[in-house]
C-alpha cells in the first residue's frame, strides 16, 4: 500500500487530505497521471513530490509502504 498526502488545492479538488492505494511499482510521474485520470485532478505537471520526506523526481519508483506528499506551489505572501 502507498499513502498519498494532498496539500493545498489538491485537498480541495479531491475532497480529502490523504488516500491509500495499491500502486507500488509506479513511478511518481505515473502516479500523477493516474490521479489526473482516475480522480479528475487538474494538471500535476508543476506539483512537487516527496517520497518519505525526501524530495523526489518524476522517475522515482514507488515501493510498498511509501508515503508520497504532493505539493502544488502556492504563491501568497
Amino acid at each position: 500500500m502507498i499513502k498519498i498526502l494532498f496539500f493545498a488545492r489538491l485537498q480541495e479538488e479531491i475532497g480529502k487530505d490523504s488516500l491509500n492505494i495499491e500502486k507500488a511499482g509506479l513511478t511518481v510521474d505515473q502516479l500523477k497521471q493516474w490521479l489526473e485520470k482516475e480522480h479528475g485532478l487538474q494538471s500535476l505537471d508543476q506539483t512537487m513530490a516527496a517520497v518519505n520526506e525526501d524530495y523526489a523526481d518524476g522517475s522515482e519508483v514507488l515501493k510498498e509502504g511509501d508515503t508520497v506528499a504532493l505539493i502544488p506551489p502556492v504563491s501568497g505572501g
Partner: protein
Amino acid sequence: MDTRYSRQELFSGIGKEGQKRLQEKHVLVLGAGALGSASAETLVRAGVGTLTIIDRDFVEWSNLHRQQLYTEADAEHNHPKAIAAKERLQSINKDTTVKAYVLDAKADNLKKLVQDADVVIDGSDNFDIRFIINDLSQKYRVPWIFGAFAGSFGMSYTFLPEKTPCLQCILSTIPSSSMSCETSGIIAPAVQMTSAHQTTEALKILTNQEESLRGTLLLFDVWNTQQQSIRTDKIKKTDCPSCGKERTYPYLVHEQDTKLEVLCGRNTVQIRPSEKKEYDFNTLASELKQHGNVRKNSYILICTLSDCRLAIFQDGRVLIHGTKEIDKAKHLYHRFIAKEKE
C-alpha cells in the same frame, strides 16, 4: 540597566552575544503584505539593527484580517503599505533603523538593496519576483528565506548560496498557475506559522549560526495539522543556470521592462510607463473628479469609476482594479491619465 532584550538573551540560542550580533545586522523584507508585516514586526521587536522594507501597494480593507501592521485608518486613507509599515515598526522599536520604499521591485532596483542586506525575507506574492530574488541572492551571496501560503497551507525554505539548492533547482520553471490568497482565501494563522518559520531561520542567520538552520523544505497545514519536512540534499543541480558552474542568472539577464502586467489572481492590471513620470496630483484630481470619486494622499491618488478603480502612484505606476483585460486597461489609462501624450 536595559532590560528590553533580557528574556531573549536568556534563551540559550541567542544569548548576549547573539543579541549583539542582531543589533549589527541588516534585514531586507521584500513585500509588506501579510508575511512581510509579520516578519518585520518580529525582527524589529527582536532588535535587529536595520530593517529595510519595500512594497508597491497600498492598504485596503480586505488586508486587515491578516496584515498585522495596519489599522483601519491606513485602509481608510489608502496609505502605502511601506510607509504605514515603517511608522508602526518605528513606534515598536526606535532603536532599529527602519527604511521603507514604495517601490515596484525589479532586478535593477533590488540589486543594491540585496547587496546591502545580511538576509532577505520573502514577503512577495508571486514567483516572477522570487526567481529574480533567487538570482540576486546567488550573485551577491546573500541568503534568502522563501515563504508562501494559500488557504491554511504554508511553506518555507532557506536558500543559502553555495550550500543549498536554489529555487531554480527546486522548481525549474516559474509556476504558471499557483494558488494565491486571491483565489483560495487565507487565514491569518497560516501567515503567522509561515512567518514564524522564516523569522526563526533569520534569527539563526543573523546570529551567525548557519549550522543550526533547518535545511529542509517545510510545508504544513494549520487547519488539518499536517506537516512535512522534506530533505533536499539530492536536488542541487550542477548545471543549474542560477547556482551551477556555468551560471547565467537568467532572471537578471532576460528581464524585460514590462509596461503592462496583469497582476495574477487580482483582477488588476498594472501599467508602468517606460519613462518615469511625476504627476501633479492636484491637477489630475480636478480633472478626474468629473468622472468619479477621487481620494488622494501624497503618495497615491485613487479614482473610482463606474466599473473600475484607478490607483495612480507618485512614481508613475497605475493600477487598474476591476479588469484583467490589458486592452481595456490601456484604454482607460489613455483616456484618463496619459492623454496629453497621445
